[in-house]
């Protein structure tokens, strides 16, 4: 907690970790960040990233848990395997996908080979494809984890309730929203909070995959903050950018708190 508060205070000053005199500068650091076109591109990217990745993670995760909810041969094994992509660190995942998209060793080339194509350029080098690709990699890492987390709650719903809804002739979507969502509500809300919070702070995977490029196609605010601090040694810009991300997380957190209070009263 204390470093976080210090970090917030420091973002309004000329603080740096080398002991230069500290002056209060108000919102100057924030203004210089907000005027930087790289940062605005990063803010737009992270909004797209979060808005696309989180619903996909929740949807695919729920579908996986839904498929695995009943008894099935090898169910325990499947459950453990769901966790494996998440066990790869963001850095490790970045390294892995960097090579897997590279030619000659990669998956896209192998698949293309089967349909008679020869070489696929890495989508990470393409201005239009780079951001969707980083989203896909994030979904690959997190969606099975969501499935794993939802599974116990989904399994705990008695079979009869599904059967009743089926007898009523409710279509699949209605069965899901009426039978599964009420008991899973708080869990889903908390998972969504975690996914959104982590997505907003995304940077280590992107750092390895693209370094924010090509151009600013995959720049994220957290990566911007990292590069400002460790690339340009501009600690003021770094702190301000990081706290803009944190403000986003806190705003989402506030909505989450309101929603969970409301769902408890309902």
């Amino acid at each position, binding site marked *: 907690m204390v470093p976080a508060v210090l970090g917030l205070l420091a973002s309004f000053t000329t603080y740096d970790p080398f002991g230069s005199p500290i002056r209060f500068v108000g919102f100057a650091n924030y203004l210089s960040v907000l005027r930087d076109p790289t940062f605005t591109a990063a803010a737009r990217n992270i909004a797209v990233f979060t808005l696309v990745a989180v619903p996909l993670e929740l949807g695919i995760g729920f579908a996986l848990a839904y498929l695995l909810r009943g008894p099935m041969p090898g169910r325990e094994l499947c459950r453990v395997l769901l966790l494996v*992509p998440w066990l*790869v660190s963001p850095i490790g995942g970045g*390294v892995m996908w960097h090579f897997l998209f590279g030619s000659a060793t990669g998956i896209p080339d192998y698949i293309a080979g089967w349909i008679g194509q020869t070489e696929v350029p890495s989508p990470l080098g393409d201005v239009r494809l780079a951001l969707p690709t980083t989203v896909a990699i994030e979904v690959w890492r997190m969606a099975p984890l969501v499935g794993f987390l939802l599974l116990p709650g989904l399994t705990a719903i008695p079979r009869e309730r599904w059967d009743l809804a089926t007898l009523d002739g409710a279509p699949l979507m209605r069965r899901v929203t009426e039978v599964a969502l009420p008991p899973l509500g708080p869990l889903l809300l908390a998972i969504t909070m975690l996914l959104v919070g982590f997505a907003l702070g995304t940077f*280590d995977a992107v750092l390895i995959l693209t370094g924010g490029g090509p151009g600013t196609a995959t720049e994220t605010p957290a990566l911007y903050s990292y590069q400002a601090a460790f690339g340009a040694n501009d600690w003021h810009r770094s702190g301000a950018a990081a706290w803009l991300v944190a403000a986003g997380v806190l705003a989402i957190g506030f909505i989450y708190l309101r929603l969970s209070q409301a769902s408890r009263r309902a």
Partner: protein
Amino acid sequence: MRASFKLQAIRFALVVIALIAFLSPIAWTLLASVGFQPDNNTSPPSWKGSLTFENFADVGIAEPSFWAELATSAASAVCASALTVCASLPAAYGLARSRFHGHRLLSQGFLVLATLPAMAYVIPLSDLIRRLHLVDTFVGLVLTESAVTAPLAIYVLQGAIRQLAPEWEEAAWLEGAALWRILIRIVLPVAAPAAAATALILFVLDWNLLIVPLVLTSGELKTLPVAMSDFFTFERELEWPTAAAALTISLAPVVVLVAVFHGVLDQFATGIGSHD
């Protein structure tokens, strides 16, 4: 009966397809690490290579301190996750059993804190650690890793404790038992699965942490993610089979841990979801 059998088969097929899709990148990496790579010059593509463990030895050549970094990662993640769980358990217990106004808000606030981006606090944190003369020390690494993961631990553990019936504790209170005795004798035994699940998840998080160990160390003490990111940010050459071997080694411990202890992990999901 036939219809439900058919449905079962479809379900099974979908699960298998999904797992293949999610796991093929990892299979690709494992195969490359033991010497097998696809050959796209033939039509249709084929696999070439023969079983070898040389790539694992090459990791130590490309990064001479790799094995020391592996040891640092393992030791710091074990110590940090254990420390966090021990320190968070009393806090979580206090929150779970408290009735003051706003305790719910406080406990859910910990979930929000858990997702705060690391860049927002690492620089003052590193300053603090330097003033304590703990830069590049194992103690500094463990303390910060555990501080960073503590909010998530408190949130999950208090959700899990809330599920437990309070009667035994109340009986012990009435008999005048001390708080620490209640915690150790009554709460810990029933909360043990949740504590183990939390420790396991925290271990994985600590194991994969990048920015915090990166800022706290100046190169003498490194964890695996820091070493891996160094390779790429300084653009040193690394062959794919060697990188694949390094990835395999860094993934193996967490996979083994999760495979062995997966039984308790349900508790983690329960802890996240039960806050009402």
